[in-house]
């Protein structure tokens, strides 16, 4: 036990361009499909699909499902399922709507649009979502009721709790600060967006650099420098490109005029302003980063994947898999509540049918994004990309003028086809 000879490092064999970049082929496939989809729609719509305006709308429409899909990855990785996310979103949305239109203004007597309203509403909503999720997890983990049943029950219960709380009424208008989480009503403007974009690029490059240094410190093989350079360039271009596009979408003049009038100022003649990054997209990016760190760099994440790969092994390694189940569903509940903030703010009110069919979109996004229903495999970025692909497909078809029933038929078919292609791919490369 004192001998410390290290393993010799396997000599690098000749590898192709993509292998040297160490990019996941599956991810490349998804990005490829997404690009083809975008270019295809753009051609059919005579360039209307890839305008700053449409891309802006696409991103803010994707946020709500994408946030929940990142949580669904953990749920599915551990061989569970959550059919209640859309209903839970509705309940959280109803709770927050009632908090800001009834509780704070009338019960607390602070009136409408009080500066504290949105904080109370969001806090109450997030707490409720987390608690309900934890309760689901407790039933699955400790009472050993299958997640399918617990969340199928939850689907009915929470959809109707929301209905009962609001008498089925549309609740609105919501608090004016709260609306900033929805998208168009809350953007950073061009300058701040550039600052953030540059900051994010810097951070991403620093992360790349640090991970290379850590590998070198342990004398592990690293990618050739040119490959790191290509990766760095791709990442920088993606971040800054997104910022540039979102900045290029200009606030309509009438709206801009109104914004100035609200502040009691007069809009200078000929002024134009870009929207920049929506706050909701920032929230999604934050969720993606945090969830990715949790998945890859924390014990919690390691235990989630270990449990998905072999629940018995996890148990025998001393992992408390029951408590782990509670945590996973609590995270899912928290993210449903966060999605509820974004979704209700985007609509500017709580409607009785908010989140309807979201459970299917969320599960589909995670699965298209490469999360295996048999457990143990899945990535956060895959799920988010899955959500983006689904939303693009839906919006693109709407733009082309495909009839509503056909839109859903196509989305359903794509889901099944994507999973089939994935199965064939996994068989080919011999992965499980």
């Amino acid at each position, binding site marked *: 036990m004192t*001998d410390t000879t290290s393993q010799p490092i396997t000599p690098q064999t000749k590898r192709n361009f993509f292998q040297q970049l160490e990019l996941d082929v599956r991810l490349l496939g998804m990005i490829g499909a997404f690009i083809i989809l975008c270019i295809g729609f753009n051609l059919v719509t005579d360039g209307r699909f890839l305008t700053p305006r449409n891309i802006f709308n696409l991103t803010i429409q994707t946020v709500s499902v994408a946030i929940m899909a990142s949580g669904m990855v953990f749920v599915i990785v551990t061989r569970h399922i959550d059919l209640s996310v859309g209903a839970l979103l509705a309940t959280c949305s109803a709770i927050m709507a009632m908090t800001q239109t009834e509780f704070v203004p009338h019960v607390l007597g602070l009136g409408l649009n009080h500066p504290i309203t949105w904080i109370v509403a969001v806090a109450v909503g997030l707490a409720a979502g987390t608690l309900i999720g934890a309760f689901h997890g407790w039933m699955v983990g400790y009472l050993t009721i299958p997640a399918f049943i617990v969340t199928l029950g939850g689907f009915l219960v929470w959809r109707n709790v929301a209905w009962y709380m609001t008498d089925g009424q549309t609740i609105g208008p919501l608090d004016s600060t709260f609306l900033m989480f929805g998208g168009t009503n809350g953007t950073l403007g061009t300058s701040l967006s550039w600052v953030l974009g540059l900051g994010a690029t810097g951070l991403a490059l620093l992360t790349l650099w640090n991970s290379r240094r850590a590998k070198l410190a342990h004398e592990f093989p690293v990618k050739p420098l040119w490959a790191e350079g290509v990766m760095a360039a791709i990442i920088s271009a993606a971040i800054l490109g997104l910022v540039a596009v979102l900045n290029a979408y200009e606030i309509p003049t009438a709206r801009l005029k109104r914004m100035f009038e609200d502040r009691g100022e007069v809009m200078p003649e000929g002024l134009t302003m870009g929207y920049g990054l929506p706050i909701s997209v920032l929230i999604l990016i934050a969720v993606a980063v945090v969830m990715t760190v949790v998945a890859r760099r924390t014990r919690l994440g390691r235990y989630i994947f270990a449990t998905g790969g072999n629940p018995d092994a996890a148990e025998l390694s001393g992992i408390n898999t029951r408590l782990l189940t509670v945590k996973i569903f609590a995270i899912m509940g928290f993210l449903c509540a966060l999605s509820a903030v974004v979704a209700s703010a985007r609509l500017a009110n709580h409607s009785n049918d908010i989140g309807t069919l979201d459970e299917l979109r969320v599960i589909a996004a995670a699965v298209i994004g490469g999360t295996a229903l048999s457990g143990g495999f899945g990535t956060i970025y895959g799920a988010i990309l899955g959500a983006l692909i689904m939303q693009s497909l839906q919006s693109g078809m709407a733009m082309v003028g495909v009839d509503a029933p056909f839109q859903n038929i196509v989305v359903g078919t794509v889901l099944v086809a994507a999973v089939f292609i994935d199965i064939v791919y996994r068989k080919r490369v011999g992965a499980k």
Partner: protein
Amino acid sequence: MTSPKELRAQGATPMVEMNNISISFGGIKAVDDVSVDLYPGEVVGLLGHNGAGKSTLIKVLSGAYKMDSGEIRINGNKVEITNPRDARAHNIETIYQTLALADNLDAASNLFLGREIVTGTGLVNDAAMEAECRKIMGRLNPNFRKFNEPVSALSGGQRQSVAIARAVYFNAKILIMDEPTAALGPHETQMVAELIQQLKAQGIGIFLIDHDVHAVMKLCDRASVMKNGQLVGTVDIDDVTDDDLLSMIILGKKPGEAAA
């Protein structure tokens, strides 16, 4: 160092005592009033047909199963082992018959599962774990190369060596090996035999479940034979022959004993 045999003769306290252990699954007594013990530096073989209850017995010690009745003593003190963490806290490490590996994770992640090395900020330190993994695999299985692949991509023998590495890495005092050579070729089996002798020399006590009577004769100090959940008997290897052990396994009676 005093040999385990001398320790026993002196009436020293065993490092593990499992007394009158019983456990049943849905009315079937998988282990029925079985008592075994283990001294430092000793290898005790557990023998018996498939379904005799060997794995179930040691899973009580490793915290995987809760016994219905009986007691466990470590160094003479009664202990409660209700889950695998308790067992690990008593320096009990186990190589399970099923290996208990998470197939989707790489060797290092499996090696450290439940006991990850973390950085100052509490994040898992994969680079450090891989480095440690390379060190121990360098000793146990110098041909091992697949450090960055999920263990599902490994051969049976490679998987087994990961499971063995996990059991010996954390300075076990008590080691449970449930058919550790089941998936191994002759050369690798020989390496495990050498490892067992090394560990034994360090004063580690080992419960070894093995179907190969010759291996048990060669490696063990004592053997306990089980049949249908019950203990047939525990014998000193120096006092018995291969045939004696075989007849204990098959007939379920101790040598010299009249047929039941």
